[in-house]
Structure formats: C-alpha cells, structure tokens
C-alpha cells in the first residue's frame, strides 16, 4: 500500500495505490494525521489506483471527512473503482462524500 500526499494551490491530494486493508490502514492513518489536522482546504482522495478498501480504510476517509467538516474544508473522492463504489454505496459513504470521476 502506498500513499502519496501532495499539496498544491491549497489543495491537498492524497493518492492511494494498492489495497487499503486493515493492516495498511494503521500505517495510512498515521501518515494522514497531518492532513486531518489541516483540513480547512480541499482534500482530494485520489483512488484511481486504490484496489480495495476495508472498514478501517473507510474510517480513515470518514475521519478526514469529519475533520474537513469541522474545519470548513471539503473532501473529494476521485476515481473510485466499481468495487469500492459498491462498498461506498453499501455503507452510505456515497452520500457523505463528493465523488468525482
């Protein structure tokens, strides 16, 4: 699991590559802690290369979403694959996030 964080023009882009399963979520959660702390801007979660997400991964997304909501920022989930979209649908995350292709 790889996570890349880039910041450009006040927009933080988090690129996920691989499988965000439970073990990976622990690492990713740590890495994204600074992003959550500064969530007043726009956060783009690039999921183009995200193959899989577990509930702990979803919790990371939700944590970011909650942080953004409290700080006045916004979270955009970009390019989720069908499998993950299904999970999002199941869990009601489609309604919580702004989804972009």
């Amino acid at each position, binding site marked *: 699991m790889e996570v890349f964080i880039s910041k450009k023009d006040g927009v933080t882009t988090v690129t996920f590559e691989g499988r965000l399963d439970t073990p990976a979520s622990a690492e990713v959660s740590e890495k994204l802690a600074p992003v959550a702390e500064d969530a007043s801007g726009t956060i783009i979660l690039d999921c183009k290369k995200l193959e899989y997400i577990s509930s702990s991964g979803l*919790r990371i997304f939700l944590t970011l979403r909650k942080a953004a909501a409290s700080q006045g920022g916004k979270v955009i989930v970009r390019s989720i694959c069908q499998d993950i979209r299904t999970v999002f649908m199941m869990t009601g995350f489609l309604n919580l996030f702004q989804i972009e292709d």
Partner: protein
Amino acid sequence: MKFRDVIDKVFVRQSARAGLMLVIVAAVTLEATSLIQYIFSQKGIREEATRRAESQLEATKLKILNIVDQTETAIHNSVWLAQWALAVPDSLVAVSRRIVETNPIIVGSTVALVPGYDKKHPLYSPYCFRSPGEEKIRVSSLATEEYDYTSQEWFAKPLELGKGYWSEPYIDVGGGDILMTTYSVPVLDAKGRQAAVLTADISLDWLTELVGNVKVYPEAFSMMISRSGQIMVCPAESLVMRATVQQAAENLGDTAAFGDLNRSMLAGQSGSQIIRYRKTTTHVFFAPVEKTGWSMSVMIPDSEIYGSIRRVGRLVVLLQLLGILMLVFILRSFIINQIRYNDLNDRKKVMENELHIARDIQMAMIPKIFPPFPERSDLDMTAEIVPAKEVGGDLYDFYIRDEKLIFCIGDVSGKGIPASLVMAVTRSMFRTISNHENSPAKIVTLMNDAMADVNENSMFVTFFVGILDLNTGQIRYCNAGHNSPVMLTDSKWPLPVEANLPLGVLSGFKYKEQEITIGDDDAIFLYTDGLTEAENSSHELFGESRMYEVLGTRRRSEEHMEAIKAAVREFVGKAPQSDDLTMLFIHYFRRVHLTLENDIKEVAKIAGLMEQIGSERNLDPGLVSSLNLALEEAASNVIMYAYPKDTAGALEIDAFMRKDSLEFVLTDGGKPFDPTAAPEADVTLGVEERGIGGLGIFLVRNIMDSVTYSRADGKNILKLIKKV
C-alpha cells in the same frame, strides 16, 4: 421371570400332574374291568368245569351201572335155577357154568352152599371160570380148607344182609392179577332158608380203562375208590389195590387235605371239593356209584381249569401294562417336550438377548453417530446398516487421518452370527491395516492375504476401500468384488471399478487401485446388494434402476438416505427383509484452509485465499472483492476483540465450496466474542452524527447471505455463507 414363564411352568407342572392322573385312572379302570371280567370268566369256567366233570362222572357212572346191572340181572335171573338145583347139589355147577357161558362180562361164578345145608356136602362150592384169553370154561372147587369160603366176604355178607352184595374189589391172584369184584346174592330154598350164595365175578379191567380214560382236561385224572377206601383206579398204578386214600394221603404227608374228601366220598356223597397240597390246588369232583358203594372222583388241577383264562388274563394284563407303559412313555415324552419347549423358550430368550448384545457390540464397532464430524463442513455423511437377522455380515467404516477420509463398505457372504464374526474381524483388520497404509490397493491386498490364509470356512467378503483426500477431492480406491458405487455429480453414474476378486478368495491376488477426483459438492453413494436385491412379496428385486431413480438431486445425505429407505420400504411391503442392507453416503465439499496468527497484519493473507477461490470458481472479481472485504472484517474483529493484544492465538478460516454457495467458517480459540451482537453502524446518518465504529460487521452482514455465530468446545465459530 415373566408372567408367561410362570404360566408355562405351571402348565408343565399341571400337565405332568394331569398326565399322571390320566395314567392312574386308565390303569385302575383297565385293571378293574379286567378283574371283573376275570372274576366272571372264572366263575363261568368253574361252572363249565363242574358241568363237564359232573357229566363225565355221570356218564361213567352210567356205564359202570350198566355193567353192574347186567351182572345183577344175570345173577338174579339165575337165582331160581339155583333154587331149583339145590335139591341136586351136583347140578349147581351147571348153574354157574351157564352164567359164565351166557354172560361174557362174567368171568367166574359159583354157587356156594351154606355149610351144613346139605348133609352130603358140608362145604360145596364148584367154581366155573374163564381164564383170560380162553374160551374154555374150567371148573374148580372153592371148598378147600385153606380158602374157607365161608369166611369170605362175598359169602358172608349177602347172607348177613339177606340181599345182593358187591364185594370189595380184589386182585385175583390165581387168575393172573386181574382186578375183580364179585356180586353175590343169597339163595333161599323152598322153605325160605338161606341155602346158598350165588356169585358172579367180573373183571374190573374195563373199569380201569373206563375211569382212566375220563379226561375232562388233559392234565386231569380220575380215581375210583371202594367203599372201604381202597384205591381201585388211579394213575399211580403202584397204589392200586395196595393202599387206601388215607394211606396214600399219609404217604403224601398231607392227611388234612384229603380228610374231608375221603370222608365225603366214603359216605357216598356227591359234590366237589378243593384240596390244596404241595402248593397245588386241585378241584375234586366226586360221585358215588350206587350198589357197589364205590366212589368215583375226577381231579382237575386248578391250573388246568383256569390255565387258559389265566394265560389270557396274564396276556391281557401284560398288554394293559404295555399300553399303560406306552401311555406313560408318551406322556413322559410329551411333558419332557413341554419342558424342553419351555427350556428352549428360555434359552431362545437368552440367545435373543445375546444376539442383541452381539448386535450392540457389532454396532459399537462401526461409526454410527451422525453427523460423524460435526466440526467439519467439508463432509456430509450418513451411513446405516439394516441387518436382515439380528446380526449381519455387512459392514462399513470410515475415519479421518491426515486430512484424508478413509472409508470402506463390505458384505460378508452368508448371514447371522458367522457372518457377523467375519464382519467384526474384517472391520478390525481394516482399522489396523489402513491406519498405516495409504494405498487402498495395499490395504485390500494385505487384508485379503490375511483372510485367505486362514479362511477355512470359505467365507468371503466383497469390499470397497476408498481414500478421499479432503484437500483435493481426489479419491483413490480399490474394489474387491463389491458393487460399483454410484457417483452423484452433475449426473449419476457408476464408478468404474476393476474386476478384482472379493477378499478371502485367493491369497496373493494383486488388487488394482484406481483414482478419481471429485469436485465440490459431489457425492459418492456406496451400498451392499441388500439394496438392489431387496425383494418384495412377488420376488421382484428393487434393482439398480429404482435406486438411480431415487438418488437424484443434490440433497443432504440424511435426506438421501431417508428417501432410499422409504423407497425400499414401499417396494418391499410386508415381505421379510432378505438380506442386510447397508448404505454409505459421502457428500464432499472441497475445503480451502487458511490459518491466521493473532496479528492484524495476517488478514492480508485473505486476499490470496480469495484470489484462489475466485479463480477456481471463476467468480466475478467484484464478488471476490466483496467476499474478501467481509472475510477481512470478520477476521479483523476476531483478532482485535477475541484475543487480547500480544497474546498468541490463531484464527482458522475454512472455505467450503458448494455448488451454489460458498461457506466460510472462522474458528478461534479466544475469549467468547460474538461479532453479530456488536452494534451496527447507522449508514443513514450524516457526517457529524456518523460514529466511527460498527462498519465492519455491517459490511459482513451486507455482503453475506447468512452470518451465524456459535461457541463450541471453547471456540468461537463464525459461519458466513454466500450464495453464488
């Protein structure tokens, strides 16, 4: 003891008593009847004997009297001649001569003058006689000094009595030892004085013959005694004229027995008397011969009279005894049979009981608790033996060793206890040998060698051994002459089997092994010919086609078994079960296994498992991903909540592939933890209200069709099923 047994015992005792009573009554009745018959017969026979004796006596007496009368008549007719001749005594000889001449029965005659009647002849007695065998009549004189006829009985008595007199019989010494008697009458002269005695001698030879021939019965004999008791005729010739009855009795040493008889006879009475001497009983019938004063008797031994009736009586008693003996014998054997029957009943009960025990022991040898491996989801098995008799020769067995199901089915030739013993031996041999052999052919070969070497009773066993690798679905098998098992895959077909000999037939036979791989949710059905050869009352066989018909769509093994049993029951109806019926049904689900350590990192391994299943089952990647997610969530839950942090532990994941579903079983040895009881996330809430937890179990529930938790043997078991 049961009530019936008591009844039986009582019945036996009562029938024994009744039998004894019957014998006694029969015996008494028979004996009483015979006795009465015997008494009446004896009376009749006695009367008959009396009648016969009396008529013989009478007939004999009449014959004697006839001669006596002839003699008397001859003499009386000559008296006037003698009277007339008195005047010329010399002519008296002519009178005698004439008497002898004209009467053949008279052998001698005299006219003896009373002494002094004639001056010229003080003693005068010319005697005319005929010697035996001679025609010529001789004359001699009895008036001799030495003879002195005046003192003779024949002379003195008639004069004394003044009438005719029969002398005592005597032996005529001069005339050749002939038994004689003399009849004499007094002759009066014209003046009425006693002048002479006219006599006639008659021989009693005929009497001896006559009386001696009186044979009322073959062993009977007759006697004649004179008025003085002299024995005149008697079978014992030495006694004749030499003894009186009294003397003879004295000689026999038994006067008492003859005393009364002697008196009665001498008194001229007639009648009968029973005398006993020297242990013999003799009936004596006697009658007097008037005029002569003799008494005649017929002696009939008791045995002679009653001999035949006693013989018959003995025969009757013997026959009756035989009959009663037979009756006793029959009753005895009847009662013994009754006792034996009861005994047999008791023994039969004991045997039945033992057969039950034998059956229990036999049944204890084979696995009979179903499901046999409740902890395993890759096997669904049912097996059953329905023995035809109390114990049977069919067997099956199975067990799991090293993730391999080792199973067998067999049918011992014959039925009952012998077959069951062989069955027990076969089964333990199977267990022993298969425990360290992994090749079915090797197992069968070793079993066959062991059995064929000691097979003295020519019993054989058709046998099928299979080893199912539970990880791969590969079955290696060896068939020793058993029915080909039925494969239930997408279709129904008989498993191809080599034509191997049954066990115990030929030592050293090389058994060939075969192999087949079955897929997920495939089944194999093994059976003995008790199924296909189940007979109905019309002697039709259940047959393979019916079996194939019943074996059908995929069902749980128990349902299959019940369906077959019901079909057989319906087909057979009330006909008795002709053979053992044994069935073994193995339904296999391939299982993929994964073990996770108590470390959250381990859940990453689930992806590999799912990839394998996905590609094997050719599943949609999206589904694979969902299932992966659900499994991961479930596994994470266990790792995070069931095991305390940093404690060692394992989570076992088994994936079972059924035809229309996938089943995942997660088993862990951690503390009781039911993820299904955890609160679920509310996915309808907005961002602010949304809690951070509960998503995992929510996902599991949403992805899977069935989520069930159970705890058994200190383990948490979570079962997830997804229809595919």
